[in-house]
Every structure is written in structure tokens, then in C-alpha cells.
């Protein structure tokens, strides 16, 4: 079942499946959001603010809007 990264709660983990075709897609990939990568959610800012994701040794913050472009299996 496919879910969006933006639906993940703190401490949940998953494997990235696909990055949807948008303007930020390449930037996301440059930051390490690649199909097959494992991630975990470190924190979600209040009032639907950005989420912070851990990928390997990196912590990356992104808004929910962009996180919705990342599909997880």
C-alpha cells in the first residue's frame, strides 16, 4: 500500500518508493530522497509545520507540501 511521506508520524520509518514529478523533485533527490532509501521521522513542527526526516546520517526538514510528493511503500 502506498502512503505519502507527509502522513508519517514521529518515530515511524519507511522506505521511499517514488518521487512525484514536480519542480522540487530533483532537489529532493539531491538531498538524498531516492527510491529504496530508508527514512525515519524525527519531529513534526506544530500547526502543520515542516517535518524533520532522518536519512542515513542526515536530518532534513521539509514542508508537508513537499513531503506529499514523496511516496512510500
Amino acid at each position: 500500500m502506498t502512503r505519502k511521506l507527509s502522513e508519517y508520524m514521529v518515530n515511524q520509518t519507511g522506505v521511499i518508493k517514488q518521487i512525484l514529478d514536480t519542480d522540487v523533485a530533483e532537489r529532493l533527490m539531491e538531498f538524498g530522497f531516492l527510491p529504496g532509501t530508508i527514512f525515519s521521522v524525527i519531529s513534526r513542527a506544530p500547526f502543520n509545520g515542516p517535518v524533520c526526516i532522518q536519512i542515513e546520517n542526515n536530518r532534513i526538514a521539509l514542508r508537508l507540501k513537499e513531503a506529499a510528493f514523496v511516496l512510500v511503500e
Partner: protein
Amino acid sequence: MSSQPSIRIALVGNPNIGKTTLFNKLCGLNQRTGNYPGVTVDKKKGAANYKGQSLEIIDLPGINSLYPKSKDEELVVKYLLDTKNEEYPDKFVVVVSALNLKRNLYLLDQVKDLNIPIVLAVNMIDLAEKRGIFIDFEALSNHFNVPVLPISAKKSTGIDQLKDQLLESVEVTERAAHYLEEAEKDMLSRFRDIAFDKNDYKVFLRLTQNLDENPQVQQAKDTFIRKEEVNLRKLRKNAAILRYRFVNEGLKKALTIDKSKAVDLTTRADRLLMHPIWGQVTFLLVLLAVFQAIFWLASFPMDWIDIGFGSLAEWSATALPEGYLSQLITEGLIPGIGGVVIFIPQIAILFFLFSLLEESGYMSRIIFLNDRVMQKFGMSGKSIVPMISGMACAIPAIMAARTIENSRERLITILVTPLLTCSARIPVYVLVIALVIPDDTYIWIFNAQGLALMAMYLLGVLMTFIVALVLKRILKPVYKSYLLLELPEYLIPDMKNVLVRVWNNVKSFIWNAGKIIVATAIILFVLATNGGEEFQQAEVYVQENHATLSTEEQAVFLSSYQIEKSYLGQIGKTIEPAIEPLGYDWKIGISLVTSLAAREVFVGTMSIIYAIDSEETMTIRDRLKKEVNPSTGMPVFGLATSVSLLIFYAFALQCMSTVAVTYKETKSFKWTAIQFGYMTALAYFGALIAYQILS
């Protein structure tokens, strides 16, 4: 002395991996560093000498890839692609962090395809071992076909080996384009006929992004894309995947990570500092602590300095032979300079705490926590960095806005940043607040003057957000905005770094304010002690018309009559009508004019005017308190005038350097004028309303 031309070397790499730290080590300089992405936003040059050879080193802002998204990245990519430039570097050091190899090598892989001479420096090896990261540098070197050197810019390891390598010639080896699929290769070679370049990757970059092509090429390119049905986005995405595949192959050979050694302090700290509730609470506590420290801690050394300058003036008044020059020193230079020096403690503490904030890695967490709020005001979480540094000084702050990708968010940030209370406003606030609130007044456990100062900071913040909101309504969004930000590991701030930064800022504060103040002191003094007919006849006039006064009273009356009739007084009287509705007399008017160039000159100017006007030496505060309006008999600095002055200084853009930097950053006369105009209007009408209500 070497007669050889110097070797030009540029440092390239991702943000926050230690390029500037390395640059400082190579050139013995003290450029600003910090533990968050986007500290360096401009190209910086430095020089070094090594083994009789002179080197020119160029530090650049960090980039994430050769596809720039913000102004600072654009600058670097343009620089990298401009191979025809006479000043194109002879060599590049691509700096990567051992802690973040995969992502950093991705950039190396792109730069490598430009076929330029590269040396790879793997930085932060001091931390790598502690984190259980082991790198086979030879395997890395073989995989990418570049010389590789392990270094620690902070601990100065491997720097000489790097320099040795830089003196040697680097061979450029071309390689097949592994970022393309076969069909794409054919297509690219057809595009090459339109946008010719020796280098295949540059042809690819010209196809897949908008570099400034001439209109003819651009048109041909558009036609090509349409005819061949090229999907640019897919091309770029594919290239990214293929490059990462290549990087991963290399890392399989070169990298081992011992997970048991990874102590993850950062993750544990973030559980508190990035918590939806506790994170915000901590942030507010940090801010509160910063301001308390500035006001309370600094008050002790400030008192000593105040007393020191008072006695210095007294001493010089008695020690120097009486005369014009002695008067210039005692009544012009000493109070003028004292008015600046007294604020060193506050400036030093402010910069000390800000450096801690920047060096620790907390800055990026503040961005994360506040992004949502900032968006409501048309800005990005990244606007927090310019805004916080705007509380020190607006000039570097406005430049720091370069890292904001979205042009509208960036413009709003630039336009509102000067409303935040910069350190140059502190002198004015402290002086004027002390005139209306007596020392040692407490509200509960808080010092009332400190609270008033805090209120001034809040006023600045409040107005910043109000104006931002208005601008958000006016400006139409051009591009969609996004936030994508790497949060660095927490690092213990390097004390030497922090202290050097404090020292540099204090030095430039004294130097910038000092030189203007010495110059204005001399001009003011000359203008105030010379005058036309009436000035020269002053003594006779007073004796004839006020003969009933005692000799002492005559002397007091004479000095104020004289200064009024001096050239300075005449100028002041001319502008008085414009500022009278705000509750200011001509002396304040003169101070407003002199502080057009820089705010901190206000206190110096006031010190000088009042020192000339009076017989005894006393501190500027006591003197201002005693000042009485001759027509009403009321103190000049009553509540209404003081509040009106505070508001004027809170909103007015009295800083020519800020105007200059806004123009440089926006490249727009219109926005520079709008910024100056709206701030002046806010200041004038705000002060007007305050005075009219309170008086």
C-alpha cells in the same frame, strides 16, 4: 619574493562542510564560519605563500548541485561555468565532509564532469573516527580518478599535505557520461549543434536549465525541445539517479561504518529542542536569556566606562592649557568618543551569544520551528537567520537573505529586516530611557529600564511583522516556495572562533562609529563656536540687555545665547519647524541630521552640543535631564519628547550602509526607495502621533 604568477585556487563544496574554516587556515584570515548552511553568501579572496609560491585562494558559498536555486548558489555555478574568464581558477579544491560523504560526493561527481582540475579534500576526519566512519582514501581516489586528501580544517591536520598537492599539476581525465542513457546520448549530441561546447556536461547543463543564452540560441533550443519532445525534468531526475548509483558503487569500496560507535547525541538533544511544545518553550527561554544578559550583565562595565570618561574629561580640562584646542578635546572629542565606547560591553555580549547560537547548530532548529509562522507573513523559515542577525546589524543580515530561494520571500525579508533593533540603536535607547525612568526602579523583580528596552525590541519585532503582512498582501507570489533544509549535527562552539568574531565586530563598531564621530565632533565644534555678527556681539548684548542678572547667571545665559547664534544654532533653527511638532528642539534636530549617516552618532552629537553649552563637566545624562525649554520652563526631555524620540529611532532608516546594501542586493532603485520611504514615514508620523497624544 617570488616572480612566478600566483596559482589561483577556488574552494567548492556543499554548504556547512568547512570550506571557510579551511580558507581561514590556508590564508590565516578570520572570515565568518558557523554551524548552519549558508554562512558564506559571497565570494571571498585570500592570499597565501607556500614554499616560495604565492597562492590566491577563493572561498565560495556552499552549493547543493550545479542546478542553483538561490542567489548564493547562482553566483557559484556561474563562476564554475565561466571557463573563459581571465580570472578562472587554475585548480579547484572540492571539499566534502567525511560525515556526509554520499551527498557531498554527488556534487563532486557533477563538478568532475566539467573536466576541470580537481583536488578532493575530505574534511572533518577528526569527527569521522569518533563516529565510527572509516574511509579508504585510495579506493575513493581510484573510483573518481582525482587526488584525495584527508584533512581536518578545524584541527589543522593534513593542511600541509593539501598545500603540497596544490603545488603539483593535476591531470584532467575525461570519462564517459555515466549520467545519461544511450538514447539520451544521441539526443544530446544533436543538441550540441545548437549550443556548442567542448564539454559534454556543459552542453547537458545548457539543455536542462536556463542559463543566460542569447536569444537566437534560446529560440533554437526551444524549437529543439519541442521537436524532439525532450522531457527535461525526466532527464534531470534520471541523471540524479545514475549519479547516485555511481557514487554508491564507490562508497561500497571505500566506506565502512561501525554503527556501534555512533553516539547520537544530536538525536537525543533534538527530541527536546525540536519537540512541538518544549522546542518552542526552549526557544523563547533562549531569547529571554539573551536579552537579560545584554541588559543586566553589561550594566556593570558600562558604569565603569561612564565614570572613567567623566574623570578623563575633568582631568583634561585642568591638565591642558586653556584654549580653543583644549576645549575641542574636553568638550568635543572626549564626550563624543565616550558616547561610543560605553556600548562596547553590550555589543560584545550580543555578538558572543549570537556566535554561540550560530556555532552550536541551533540556528537551523529555529528555522524548522518557525517556518510555519514565517509563511503566514510572506516569508520563509530561512528568514529567521537574517532577522536574528538583524538584531546585531542589518548589513550582513540583508546579505544573508541570499539563501532564501523564493524571490518574493527574499524581498520581503530584505525590506523589513532594518526595522529590527540593531546594535546601533542601543545607545540611543539606553540614553533616552534613562531620562524618563529613574535608575533602580523595579517592577516586581525586573529592572524597569531593562523592561523598557525590551519593549523597544518588541516594538521593532511587531512592526517588522506588520509591514511584512502588508507586503505579503501587495506582492503577488511569483514562484511556489519550498523549504528543504539540512539540520547539522550539534557541535561544541569553538571558543577561539567565537572570541575572534566578537573582537572583529567590536573593532568594526568602534572604528565605523569612531571615525564618523571624530569627524562630526570637529565639524560640530567649529560650527558651534563660530558665528556671525550676533554671535560675536553676544557678550555686549547680554551685558546691555540683561544687566539685572548676577554675573553667574549672565555667564549661563551667555553660553546658551551664544550657541543659539552660532552657525550650528542657525542651521538648527532653520530645520526646527519641521521637527517641532515631534517635540524636538533644534539641538535634537542637529543630532537627527548628523545621525542620518549612522544612528550611533546621535549620542555623540548630543554629548558635544551640550558639553559646549555648559560650564561644568558632567555626564551626558545629567546634562540632558537638566535641560529646560526656555519658553515653557519645562524639561526638554519630558515623557512626550522622549517617547517620540524612541519611536523615531525605532523606525527611521538612519543608516546609509543599509540603504547601499539594499540597493546592491535588490538591484532595484524602486525597492531601495520604497524601503527608505516607508521607514521614514513610519518614523515621522509615529513620533508625531506619540508626541501629540502625550503632550
